[in-house]
């Protein structure tokens, strides 16, 4: 088990290095510099700026400097907001994004799992068809359509919830979290139903039924553990989608998070900020994929044995 984790961590490092390298050279190859303004900058000032940000060094030196700084957690100064470093901006934007993602995934699990389990137990009844059709709609409804509609209905027409902000007025975290989480609630419901159906047709479940155990006990104690494994392997990639979704949700609900910073950095051509965020996002995604893999092995005795057998 420990060996497996170590191996996966070692596999993740080259990928991360690749992301950082490719991003670095892509940004450097981009036409137009960060200091291109509508107004022409005098050449002396340009030279000074380039010197200050070490843009006049040879490319390989810039690359090595940058990489060694990144390893130490220093993403350099922001090109757009000269008084801040990228690390400062990122640590300011991180908490709202992580909080939003956490609430969204909690919402998705709280809605998705019970719906999926119930649909599997009551297969081919109304309790199966209605939630599963709704889930299909949920999957097709893009975040940037659902968000504004929720905002319009609950924020403006009914006036029940605040329309924007994060942590400024009570309840303003509800709409963004639901918007971001609903697609995943739909996916989780479908995946959970599929997983449970497969497990419920296994022999050991029939044995449990023959023993006269209650349905609740069979489902919760015997079936659930196997039934939710596909959900867990879905959670890793889901985190990646969640981060992308946070770009939209944070823009719609004006949450001061990392996703919004990233989109703004993209508009401002704030290269160091883009670089830093990309590397950070890649790190987070790889990390969560890794965690999902580990939990999956931990939950599944069969996989664990295979790993032990192989050493």
């Amino acid at each position, binding site marked *: 088990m420990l060996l497996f984790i170590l191996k996966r961590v070692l596999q*993740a490092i*080259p*990928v991360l290095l*690749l*992301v950082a390298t490719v*991003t670095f050279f*892509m*940004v450097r*190859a*981009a*036409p137009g510099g960060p200091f291109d303004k509508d107004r022409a900058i005098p050449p002396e000032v340009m030279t000074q700026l380039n010197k200050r940000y070490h843009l006049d060094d040879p490319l390989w030196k810039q690359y090595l400097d940058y990489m060694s700084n990144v390893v130490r957690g220093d993403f350099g100064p922001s090109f757009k907001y000269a008084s801040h470093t990228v690390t400062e901006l990122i640590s300011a934007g991180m908490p709202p994004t992580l909080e939003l993602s956490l609430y969204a995934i909690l919402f998705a699990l709280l809605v998705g799992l019970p719906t999926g389990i119930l649909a599997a137990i009551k297969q081919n009844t109304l309790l199966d068809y209605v939630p599963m059709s709704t889930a*299909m*709609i949920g*999957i*097709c*409804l*893009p975040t*940037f*359509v659902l968000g*504004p*509609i929720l*905002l*319009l209905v609950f924020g*403006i027409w009914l006036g029940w919830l605040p329309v924007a902000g994060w942590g400024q007025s009570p309840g303003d975290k509800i709409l963004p979290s639901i918007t971001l989480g609903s697609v995943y609630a739909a996916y989780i419901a*479908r*995946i959970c*139903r*599929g997983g449970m159906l497969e497990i419920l047709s296994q022999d050991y479940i029939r044995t449990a039924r023959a023993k006269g155990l209650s349905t609740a006990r069979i489902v919760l104690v015997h079936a659930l553990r196997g039934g939710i494994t596909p959900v867990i392997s879905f959670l890793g990639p889901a985190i*990646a989608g969640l*981060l*992308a979704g946070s*770009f*939209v949700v944070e*823009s*719609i609900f004006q949450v001061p998070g990392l996703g919004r910073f*990233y*989109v703004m950095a*993209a*508009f401002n*051509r704030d290269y160091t900020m*883009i670089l830093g*965020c*990309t590397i950070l*996002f*890649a790190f987070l*995604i*790889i990390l969560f*994929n890794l965690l999902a893999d580990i939990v999956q092995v931990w939950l599944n005795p069969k996989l664990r044995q295979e790993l032990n057998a192989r050493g």
Partner: protein
Amino acid sequence: MTANIPKVDLPLLEKGSSLSQDAIARLRRNKVGMASFYFLLLLILIAAVTPWIAPYTYDAQNLALGAAPPSADHWLGTDTLGRDQLTRIMYGSRVSLMVGFIATAVALTIGVLWGAIAGFLGGRVDAVMMRIVDALYALPFTIFIILLTVIFGSSMLLLFLAIGAVEWLTMARIVRGQVLTIKRQEFVEAAISMGLSPWRIISRHLIPNVLGPVIVYTTLTIPSVILLESFLSFLGLGIQPPASSWGSLISGGVETMEEYPWLLIFPGLVLTMTLFSLNFLGDGLRDALDPRASKD
């Protein structure tokens, strides 16, 4: 072994139906799937002839009118510049569908070739090619595409290539898996023993036999591509004004949804219905082409 082969009554076999006929019959029984198919057909037809049938031009402004709710002159209302929304949605569908189809075609070409070559050659080549796919899977692609549009500006061509280049991974995996099983069958061994070149075996024997799953996955790739384009346009990184795509229309609608909700609701509805139809058609095709595959 050769002694007592029972005589097969050949004409009898002809009465059966071919695999594709079976599949079409199964699809026809799927009402939601067929409804989705006709909706998409209509949408494609309208998009194709939009320049000739659109009631207005996509950039014709009527500032005196401003944003007006749906009326007899403007069926879906007008935006803040007095531009006809029906026209702009129709032109937007050209962009969205074109991105959907072309980017999917790019993904399809790379994915099928990559998967078929890896699966057929096997061994070390296969290991290296699939390792590359694994590594690319770990990359944050939405972020990567945003990065690309920032660096190279948001041109239509880039959008096609960038989206196509990220969507081929799953296709490659599916095709490789299929090829691995097909490779062991007699007709491929026969082709190898006849001395056909690997390229000929891949293109004439392997690829035609993996078409089923490929068709299904293609149908499911198109909506995710359309969604990705709309997502980029919504963020302002995709299609640039005055051209319209569904994503940019929705983004415009969000800004003024308090006063003019129809500017959000209609483009949102069209986009959602399109995604819905493509997903249902994909599901229907999967059931039709591979009756054994379960739904989830």
